[in-house]
């Protein structure tokens, strides 16, 4: 243990602890900006400066490890003056149009300004000296350089967490900026639209592209029928933006709120998550049969899941040779969209041209996915507007709804039923677990051999997870799988996806089925989820997801009554011609800039 003094108070902390962390332990909060729990230390904003006795300069507490006998002052006059200067300098290069800014009231720079820089600004406005670019080219987010304070959280996120590096630091000095390859538009570089940078940007420099007004317009247009679907991970995180602690399940209140907002029908993406399991599970078993029984060498294994649009774009850019290994299944959002304007419209006897389909997603890449040209198999744009969890919270606030006092409502019928297997799609390993619950039962007629259906090896926050399930006692149809060991792997966060892909492409690992989610923790850590995010917060959301599963009466996708009836009434069977038409898609190779 290392002993030091912080504000004259004796502290003992383990070696390697930063001064910032040591101070926190003693109840002293040092303001920070570039620092983020998920990212490596940068030490570049200089907001967290403190005074160390005997040192010539102030030190960045986030980057300074403690040492024996150190004496630190976190709030001396010298520190306060320097900190005020640093914050004023940041404000001088930041276009402060707070009342017009999407991040108003949710901006870390604004909070610091409130504490340290009220009154007249000391320094000259520099924003007019630069020709800043506002890049609206991505359907998912807006990059506004005039609000950027160069903390580089986004750059670190893109490289360290996502192994994408679509954005990097360019130029130096006054011209330094966060830019893309040759300053290309964000829509024409390797950016996956995952929104992890949006989740970590302390200001309004990176924000999701919002479609709130378009959705309000649709709701208030009496000629339109507005259907909304909610993704599994939204219900365990929405509360955070409405005054609840992380990890609160607010499913019923969320449904009530959506009804109060005026949506004509409040339905559940979980329904199409269950449908995905039927389609994807069948596709996997078909691929296995072709490979094992028919000896078809052209079959691409391992098969990869295709629910995460960030991951899809990643593989299209970085591993295009592996595209045949992607499941052809659309994501649950897009399956839902295609069915909303076909099956649902038919059943409700509504002109599909008058159906507006809205989805609430923990994700920014879903906005991009909905815009893909492949996603119009209903004859219309399958999903018209995608809102993030954050945008839904904004709408709820705009409508003046007192969320806490809301009662708990249920999803509407037709495509509103779901199972616990669908809910866990929201956490890394969830798709795999849901698939195994169903596939094992189809093949053997028995439940997966795990207590309470909890396939624990695929759960948790390890970056890459592996599991294998021995298939024994198969039914007659699936005899060819008798004794086979189904090997699966799971990765979340594209940096881990890349590790796994490298192992697979280099032949160092062999699996049958691989689940990949672009975001850390899976959808619960999605780029559209409430800000802030951290491992601690994601773990709480994850626990909430599994508890949601545990509390549902049905926990296997093939038992979903809505799923059973849609096959009976509309799709015939999984991977049928109709399914292929509406629920499956194809992918394109993309350049890697």
């Amino acid at each position: 243990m290392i002993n030091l003094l912080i504000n004259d108070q004796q502290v003992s902390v383990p070696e390697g602890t930063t001064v910032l962390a040591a101070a926190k332990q003693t109840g002293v909060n040092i303001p920070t900006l570039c620092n983020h729990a998920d990212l490596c230390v940068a030490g570049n904003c200089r907001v967290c400066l403190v005074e160390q006795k005997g040192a010539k300069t102030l030190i960045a507490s986030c980057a300074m490890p403690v040492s024996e006998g150190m004496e630190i002052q976190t709030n001396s006059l010298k520190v306060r003056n320097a900190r005020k200067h640093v914050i004023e300098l940041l404000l001088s290069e930041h276009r402060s149009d707070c009342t017009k800014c999407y991040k108003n009231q949710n901006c870390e720079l604004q909070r610091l300004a409130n504490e340290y820089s009220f009154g007249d600004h000391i320094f000259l406005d520099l924003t007019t000296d630069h020709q800043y670019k506002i890049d609206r080219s991505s359907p998912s987010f807006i990059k506004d350089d005039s609000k950027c304070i160069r903390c580089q959280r986004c750059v670190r996120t893109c490289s360290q967490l996502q192994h994408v590096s679509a954005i990097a630091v360019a130029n130096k000095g006054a011209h330094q900026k966060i830019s893309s390859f040759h300053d290309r538009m964000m829509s024409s570089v390797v950016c996956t639209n995952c929104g992890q940078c949006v989740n970590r940007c302390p200001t309004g420099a990176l924000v999701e592209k919002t479609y709130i007004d378009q959705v309000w317009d649709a709701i208030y247009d009496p000629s339109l029928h507005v259907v909304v679907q909610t993704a599994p991970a939204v219900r365990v995180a929405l509360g955070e933006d409405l005054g609840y602690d992380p990890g609160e399940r607010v499913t019923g209140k969320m449904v009530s709120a959506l009804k109060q907002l005026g949506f004509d029908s409040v339905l559940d993406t979980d329904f199409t998550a269950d449908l995905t399991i039927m389609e994807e599970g069948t596709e996997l078993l078909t691929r296995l049969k072709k490979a094992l029984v028919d000896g078809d060498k052209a079959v691409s294994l391992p098969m990869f899941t295709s629910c995460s649009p960030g991951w899809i774009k990643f593989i299209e850019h970085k591993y295009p040779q592996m595209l045949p290994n992607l499941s052809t299944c659309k994501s649950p959002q897009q399956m839902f969209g295609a069915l909303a304007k076909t099956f649902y419209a038919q059943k409700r006897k509504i002109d599909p041209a008058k159906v507006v389909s809205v989805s609430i997603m923990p994700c920014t890449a879903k906005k991009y996915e909905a815009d893909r040209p492949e996603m119009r198999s209903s004859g219309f744009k399958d999903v018209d507007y995608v809102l993030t969890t954050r945008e839904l919270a904004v709408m709820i606030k705009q409508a003046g709804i007192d969320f806490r006092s809301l009662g708990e409502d249920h999803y509407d019928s037709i495509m509103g039923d779901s199972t616990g297997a669908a809910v866990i799609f929201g956490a890394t390993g969830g798709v795999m677990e849901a698939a195994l619950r169903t596939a094992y039962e189809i093949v053997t007629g028995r439940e997966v051999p795990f207590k309470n259906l909890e396939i624990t090896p695929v759960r948790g926050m390890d970056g890459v997870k592996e599991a294998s399930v021995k298939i024994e006692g198969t039914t007659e149809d699936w005899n060819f799988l008798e004794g086979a060991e189904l090997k699966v792997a799971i990765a979340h966060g594209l940096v881990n996806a890349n590790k796994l892909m490298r192992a697979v492409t280099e032949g160092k690992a062999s699996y049958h089925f691989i689940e990949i989610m672009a975001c850390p923790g899976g959808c619960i850590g999605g780029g559209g989820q409430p800000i802030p995010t951290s491992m601690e917060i994601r773990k709480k959301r994850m626990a909430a997801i599994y508890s949601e599963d545990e509390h549902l009466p049905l926990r296997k996708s093939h038992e979903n009554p809505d799923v059973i009836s849609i096959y009976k009434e509309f799709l015939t069977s999984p991977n049928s011609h109709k399914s292929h038409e509406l629920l499956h898609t194809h992918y394109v190779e993309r350049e890697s800039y």
Partner: protein
Amino acid sequence: MKNEGLTKVDLIFENIDSGKVLSKAFRMSNDEILKEILDSGLRGRGGAGFPTGMKWKFTATEKDPEKYIVCNADEGEPGTFKDREILDKVAYKVYGGMAIAGKAIGSKKGFVYLRGEYRFLLPQLYMELDKFHKLIKEIGYDFNIEFRMGSGAYICGEESALFESIEGFRGEPRNKPPYPTTSGVFSKPTSINNVETLVTAMMIIDKGASEYFKLGTKDSRGSKVFSVSGDTPKPGIFELELGMTVKQFVDEFGDGDTKAVQVGGASGFCVPRKKFDDTIIGFEGVPTGGSMKLFNSSRSMYNVLHNYLDFFTEESCGQCTPCRVGCQQLLKGIERVKKGEEKSVYLHELVKLADTMKIASKCGLGQSVGNAFKSIVENFREEIIY
């Protein structure tokens, strides 16, 4: 204080028998070399003046078997051009100094990080390097040197930014600690020394620490190569014993009308005429990496300062707030004061900002912007305002 005028010295450019000195060095133990360098009182010649012997000793005590010697030849300080001359004339002594440093710290590998604009020197530097590698082999010692090229960024002369650049990354300074002696290039213990320091070290081994110790003053031992420029009838490179006052220097190099001397380049200090007498050039007064720029009364100190701030605004890496934004504020601030768009008292705010930059910036670049700014604004306030 010595007061008998300037003493010219010829250590750096003196031709020596490299093989003889290196053989002598390789017969010495690591500790013996370290002791010689420590005893000589040699401090780094790049400007910061860290005791060379200490730097080597810290690196030597690291356990990691893989260590590096890096020669900082990214000479970018405005008004400094002595390393170019040293590399041009006595490159073999630079290599020799690196090998001796390698022996002292236990490293078999050195890099020379050469300023991008000095690329034209490469053919002859490679020729000399071939000779050096042969010589070393003949003596029976194992030390290999490679060149790495800078690309024109001033910040890459900052040691940790230089390492980043060698490793192929954007040249941005790292957080310290860890210091280079524990984690330098490729995260290995590294001793990074200026070109002149390495040559001086070789000469100390040749002549002995006690000889070298006789030169200079208590805080500034030895001699130093100066790059003299500006309003002077004899610009050029001069090796002088340390310890002289600015007055003595101006008497030798001035044009009779010198009103200020910028000691240490853009990141150094401006000494006005009234302080010539009692300002020593060295670590007890104003330190310099070699740059000595003289200004006569025809020069506008506003223009001089504007030029420096323009330079820093361009050459800051842009990573940390005080340096990136502070430089722009200082520049824009004096422009507006000059134009009468801000009141002259605004200079007071700018001086406070310069003080903050000194203590809040991440690396030496941002920390030293305030040197030139404050010394010019405080001594030539009227020239900045009117």
